[in-house]
């Protein structure tokens, strides 16, 4: 047993380690911003085509035929949103822009859904 290690008051070394570990918090937030997967494609599901993947690259508006009529999905700056849909609730339109991979929205009455996809997406979730 080392007598020097039985001290109960924290020393300079302890404070240095504390500061080092505290610095890891903003650093990890910084890395996280870089590591976050950026979506590059959108999967649109409709009664016509079942499921089709489009690129998010050029900004445009896609018109998708659904059960009630045409839903418009606007793609801009790597994000997507429903701009119009022939449903009554308009939850799809009100949900606004979706920009994260895995994020998406469905217009259930019109049977049209969209999901943003990133190249490194393998799972949505895993539980055990």
């Amino acid at each position, binding site marked *: *047993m*080392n007598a*020097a*290690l*039985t*001290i*109960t*008051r*924290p*020393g*300079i*070394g*302890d*404070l*240095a*380690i*504390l500061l080092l*570990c*505290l610095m*890891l*918090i*903003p650093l*990890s*937030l910084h*890395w*996280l911003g870089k*590591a*976050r*997967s950026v979506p590059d494609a959108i999967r649109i599901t409709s009664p016509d085509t079942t499921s089709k993947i489009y690129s998010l690259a050029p900004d445009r508006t896609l018109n998708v035929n659904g059960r009630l009529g045409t839903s418009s999905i606007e793609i801009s700056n790597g994000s997507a949103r429903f701009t119009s849909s022939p449903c009554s609730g308009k939850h799809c339109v009100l949900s606004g822009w979706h920009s994260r991979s*895995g994020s998406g929205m469905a217009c259930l009455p019109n049977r049209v859904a969209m999901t943003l996809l990133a190249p*490194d*997406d*393998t*799972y949505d*979730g*895993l539980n*055990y």
Partner: protein
Amino acid sequence: MASQAPALQISREDRQIALLASLAVAIHILESGIPSPVPGVKPGLANIITLLVLFRFGWRYAAWVSGLRVLAGSLLIGTFMSPTFFLSLAGATASMLAIGVLWLLPKGWVGVYGISILAAVSHVCAQLVTAWLLFIPHSMILGLLPVLIAAGIIFGIFNAIIVASIQKRLTEQPSPV
């Protein structure tokens, strides 16, 4: 006549380490039943025993207690060779390596607080990287890193206070074993 096996010498130290290892296993099992509001955030109370063994018997014995806790704990809970076991093993290995590095420093530079904080933080970091590499290969899992590091620091300090107070009592009173 069959030759007799040499008698196994069990020292007082061996008994103390066995007792402390079983205590660590018991805390490990009790803690596995505590629900956590954030995935992966746990006080790591079993680490108190590892640190006590470290300060009383040295790094080699602490590594034994830590390894035994992971192995026996997982066998008793029924998580042996499951993702939980590998996360536990990765965390314990990383924290023992981090403690080992600090242990090599000239004595007196770092005390129980620094060792406990670094052990807890390296434990969570290793667990998260293992989870990312083996089980959930999605970069969003790294979003837990700031939360887990913060929790590691808080529980590292909390455990260090407990270790310091137990160590104080143990040096004042003779060991019961």
